[in-house]
């Protein structure tokens, strides 16, 4: 049962592996290439054998089904060669009747960053010395210090004997600026809480609006995706995103072949190239097959919930119905589908 559930199904009920086999797509050339790569553990340069067809393909959204198949098969070949294993590139379209939403229990989060690393493992981000791309950022929010001494200390300048504008020297309460690089031995810490952030999959995404070539767009199931092959790298979207969710491949991504996750989606975690933008896609390669995202699955405290916003029985809708929820920067009318909640 479990095997059946997780197995990838192609459009006609045939699995992609079958489709590939039927198409006889494993040519002698690619097999020998694979063999060569298997003997050489060094990951291939991703740009080495990009075909002209890949350079001059259309924007993914405008491709016919056939062109999509072609593009996907082309990529499967190339990736399989480069990474020395059978790589599947899914092209599953948005699911009918589904609008993905996410809810994160901010009360539960312990700041362990396991979601961050799980996301990297799942989504084939660049790692290594030169560039580490992480789609999730966990902020440590300090609860501030309160002391009777500070209460009565004068504001500045002290000479006047009155507090200027009522200022105390030290602000009390939660400090709004999060800390990004906290590294205590153990989490959660006593005087902090944690706020993980990632792409909010806005219903009115500012990043989509500013993209000059429409390479990033909102799919009908509410996921904001990027056609990495169409992106020109202008980084307008990075400027426009109020959640700092987007990352740029400054150099050629560093993705060791043995760590590469071969279950990919064209719009999701397939290996990227230098000079393009990427971000969280709610693990489109998983969620469109019905599976929870990597971050939901690894959270050791179960703070992360994801599901179909159109289904009143889904986890997310139940959270919305019964918990106190808020969204970040709701004032910007971006309508994120990423909710934070507490008991």
């Amino acid at each position: 049962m479990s095997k059946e559930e997780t197995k990838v199904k192609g459009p006609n009920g045939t699995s992609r592996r079958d489709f590939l086999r039927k198409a006889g797509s494993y040519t002698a050339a690619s097999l020998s290439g694979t063999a060569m790569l298997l003997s050489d553990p060094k990951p291939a340069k991703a740009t080495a054998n990009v075909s002209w067809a890949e350079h001059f393909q259309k924007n993914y959204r405008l491709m016919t089904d056939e062109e999509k198949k072609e593009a996907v098969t082309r990529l499967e070949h190339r990736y399989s060669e480069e990474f020395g294993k059978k790589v599947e590139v899914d092209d599953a379209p948005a699911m009918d009747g589904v609008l993905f939403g996410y809810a994160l229990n901010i009360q539960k989060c312990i700041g362990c960053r396991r979601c961050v690393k799980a996301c990297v493992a799942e989504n084939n981000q660049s790692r290594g010395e030169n560039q580490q791309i992480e789609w999730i950022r966990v902020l440590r929010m300090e609860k501030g210090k309160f002391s009777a001494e500070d209460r009565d200390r004068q504001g500045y300048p002290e000479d006047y004997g009155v507090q200027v504008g009522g200022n105390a020297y030290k602000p009390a309460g939660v400090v709004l600026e999060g800390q990004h690089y906290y590294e205590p031995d153990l989490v959660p810490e006593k005087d902090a809480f944690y706020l993980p952030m990632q792409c909010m999959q806005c219903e009115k995404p500012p990043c989509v609006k500013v993209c000059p070539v429409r390479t990033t767009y909102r799919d009908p199931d509410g996921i904001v995706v990027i056609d990495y092959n169409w992106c020109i790298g202008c980084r307008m979207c990075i400027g426009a995103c109020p959640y700092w969710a987007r990352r740029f491949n400054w150099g050629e991504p560093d993705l060791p072949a043995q760590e590469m996750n071969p279950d990919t989606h064209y719009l999701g975690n397939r290996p990227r190239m230098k000079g393009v933008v990427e971000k969280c896609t709610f693990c489109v390669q998983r969620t469109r097959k019905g599976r929870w995202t990597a971050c939901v699955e690894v959270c050791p405290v179960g703070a992360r919930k994801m599901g179909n916003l159109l289904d009143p029985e889904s986890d997310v809708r139940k959270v919305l119905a019964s918990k106190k929820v808020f969204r970040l920067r709701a004032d910007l009318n971006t309508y994120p589908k990423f909710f934070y909640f507490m008991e």
Partner: protein
Amino acid sequence: MTIYHLFGPVISLCLLAAASVASAAGDTVRKDEKTCFESRKGLSQVRKHEIEPGVMNVKCSPITGGVLFWGDPFDGTIPMGDMPVEADYSHEEAVVKPREPQIDRNKLLTICAMACHNGEYVPYPENKLARPLRMHKDIVPDSMQLKHGKGAIWCLDCHHAVTRTKLIDHYGNEVSFNQSQKLCGKCHGQVYRSWRNGIHGKRIGMWRKGGKKRWWTCTECHNPHDVEQGGRNSGFAQLNPEPAPMLPKGMSNADHERGHGEEHGR
């Protein structure tokens, strides 16, 4: 009868010795990074193995040993079993990872239950009230300060007095360690309801309605003997965090973001 009473403990003590040797071996295996933990370090271990060629059941963090990826989310699970209240698990395939092998990994539970705490050899306690233990203070050092219920509950409120491999509910019925929710839910009703709704606790697998899900039970995340976790009162034991992100280019440290709030008035 008397022979059994005499030899029973002796045999079981031998078994105990064997078990502790086995557990010591288990510890060395853990150092080999063959095992990882899911939610509770040391108490929700999972052993790495290949589920199909080239696919591991789990991928783990090399730094903290936490599971980062389930190759098969249902590996090593069993059906959740009968649940008294209807919820998702009644209509979908719901599985849990059995807690018994985890809790009984050193076979102590089985052996102790068989050898001494069988309701006959060790006298059946008169009541559930807290009392100084005569033996085993080494095994349960904090028996007089259980961090659960602020002293209002004690061992036998949860553990079966006779069948030590089981827990109990309000009616004294046996509850399996695999279904701790049935026990915990008797006090934590609101949380239990949230859990049944899938919004408290953790599930992995298929998000779709009707899809197969692995449910986490209470003790997979919480330590029932120390739910308060000291002054932090958090419900979760502390864990080692994964490393911080890479510093932005041009930054040699992140000192500027520490010591917040010192200069805010200025």
